[in-house]
């Protein structure tokens, strides 16, 4: 297999890489006309992003709504067909990388067992007409993993793993609270024994006291089954807690990606700085003395992203005329090879 595209290894060079995303691009066409349908524009949801994820780690993906973080997760899993780019996923059996964008049919279906997703909305992502047991067991049937008594035992085991009673198997989604539903979603994602899970805002619909329960559960499961997570969220405090490394997205591009300690203690991109300063801290004494960077305006439409650096219209330090507003900043490593710190900004 030939591997093309920019090879940006955002992890440490010696790491065991599970997922290598190169120039991933997802444009959604905007069309006019019914009979003679023609494309008039593209919504540039994800625009040539590259990063790597190593086995067993959690990569946090943060950004505001509409920045393309969910689309990135879905395009990696091939729930959308990416417009361009490669998604290289390490196949356990053979040890080499498979480009997910190139395979289909039976081969794709076999790969899907290894990558699962937990959705944001625990109310919308469970079929109300299926019992909890059949929701959790569906992947077992689809991938032909278990039948009969083995199937029932496995469903019971999965429910126990996520902290639900096995006798809940016969109940229906409406009988569960939000946190319990999210546990069912997690059990379903675990059913086919995946190595990689995309967690798409798994706690943002839940109450504060329940969020901590689910986060702890996700961490326990990661340690127990050696899972790799792509953790998508907009809550920076939660991402800091759960992630090993964090990527910050803005308008379809990655602004900054590095180790979590480095990102929170030494943010370089002005957007990351503004985002961190906007997070309120539950302590009035700390808040009273905290400086805030208030960004002006709204996120521009991905239909017509700004020229040059896409953050320049809101950027508090975009001073370089003819550069920030005209030239797209290079996504480059300003850290070391052992501790990479990638950032896309002219002024860093």
């Amino acid at each position, binding site marked *: 297999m030939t591997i093309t595209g920019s090879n940006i290894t955002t992890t440490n060079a010696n790491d065991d890489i599970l997922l290598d995303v190169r120039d991933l691009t997802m444009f959604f066409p905007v069309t006019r006309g019914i009979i003679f349908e023609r494309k008039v524009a593209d919504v540039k949801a994800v625009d040539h992003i590259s990063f790597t994820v190593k086995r067993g780690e959690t990569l946090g993906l943060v950004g*505001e*709504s509409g920045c393309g973080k969910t689309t990135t997760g879905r395009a990696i899993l091939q729930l959308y067909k990416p417009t361009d780019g490669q998604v290289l996923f390490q196949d356990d059996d053979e040890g080499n990388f498979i480009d997910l964008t190139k395979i289909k049919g039976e081969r794709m279906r076999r790969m899907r067992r290894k990558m699962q997703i937990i959705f944001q909305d625990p109310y919308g992502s469970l079929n109300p007409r299926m019992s909890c047991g059949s929701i959790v067991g569906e992947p077992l049937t689809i991938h032909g993993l278990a039948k009969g008594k083995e199937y029932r035992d496995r469903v019971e085991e999965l429910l126990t793993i996520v902290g639900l009673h096995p006798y809940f198997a016969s109940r229906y989604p409406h009988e569960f*609270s939000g*946190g319990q539903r999210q546990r069912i979603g997690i059990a379903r994602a675990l059913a086919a024994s995946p190595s990689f899970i995309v967690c798409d805002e798994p706690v943002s619909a839940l*109450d*504060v*006291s*329940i*969020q*901590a*329960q689910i*986060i*702890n559960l996700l*961490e326990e499961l990661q340690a127990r089954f050696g899972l790799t997570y792509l953790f998508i969220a*907009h809550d*920076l*405090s*939660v991402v*800091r*807690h759960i992630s090993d490394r964090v990527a910050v997205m803005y308008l379809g591009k990655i602004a900054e990606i590095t180790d*979590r300690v480095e990102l*929170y203690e030494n943010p370089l991109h002005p957007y990351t700085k*503004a*985002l*961190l*300063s*906007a*997070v*309120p*801290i*539950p*302590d*009035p*004494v*700390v*808040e009273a003395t905290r400086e*805030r960077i*208030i*960004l*002006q305006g*709204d*996120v521009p439409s991905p239909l017509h992203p700004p020229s040059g650096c896409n953050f320049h219209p809101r950027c508090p330090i975009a001073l370089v005329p003819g550069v920030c507003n005209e030239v797209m900043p290079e996504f480059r490593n300003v850290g070391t090879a052992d501790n990479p710190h990638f950032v896309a900004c002219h002024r860093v």
Partner: protein
Amino acid sequence: MGVLLQVKDLATQFFTQEGVVKAVDGITYDVEEGETLGLVGESGCGKSVSAMSLLRLIPNPPGRIVRGEVLFDGEDLVKVDEARLREIRGNKIGMIFQEPMTSLNPVLTIGRQLTEALELHLGMDRNAANKRAAELLHMVGIPEAETRLSDYPHQFSGGMRQRVMIAIGLSCNPRLLLADEPTTALDVTIQAQILELIKRLSRELGTSVILITHNLGVVARYADRVNVMYAGRIIETGTARDIYGLPRHPYTLGLLKSVPRLDQAMKEKLDPIEGLPPDLIDLPPGCPFRPRCKFTIDKCAVEYPPLITVGENHRAACWVDVTTGQAR
């Protein structure tokens, strides 16, 4: 500073087929002039219902205010007739609702929705109202305010719609602003813009604000005093500094511990509050937090704890002193 609003033993119940839901079960608090009061709690704790009850905005049936008084400037809003209440709503008490996407009327222009209250309450004519509406939009930071008056809500982004809601809420210079989760649907950078705006305007205009939210960080920054609610009652009340610095109710303590904080060292594990919030139809006797509480004593199962004074202007509804773990 005087007291602007006095809520006394307010209780709102919903009469459903499954039974009576005691959404708000006897809450008492004051709001002083010019202060910002935070009302915190998780979904279903009754914080929104308690705010809606102040203006009698609870759909009836199934909801009904079953007892209590809401004294606003000495007038009991629970007892006044509908016509008088309409004079107060949007005029002396402004309201910002939770969802900017759905609480504006999609078939009316932004200008019309702003001028409606101005013409109704302040008796302005169309021209004066339009002029004032443009000023209001400008005040909340919407560029080219005059031309945008003729736009419809769908032409505005979420953050801008919430600004319009604030402009409507403040249009008649209310003495009290009810802000029900004003930033929950918005991104953090926009949330910061909106909250700074509410804070600045309330300072400039001397408006009292009741800020309802589930976000502990938001309350910490913007509220002077805080009421923490659980299962339809206020379980702890005090200044923001006391509540966050010295929480005296196990629930407040648990909530503060369960959230990861940006300014603290990273923890291996979070300390969640175990279990689920109770069903408000079928509340057990005693303290409703007891099944999830780490400090229970025998008395907790029998009797509901009243708000006990634990410090200056600081009260908590708990039989146990959480600093020692002993009964009071």
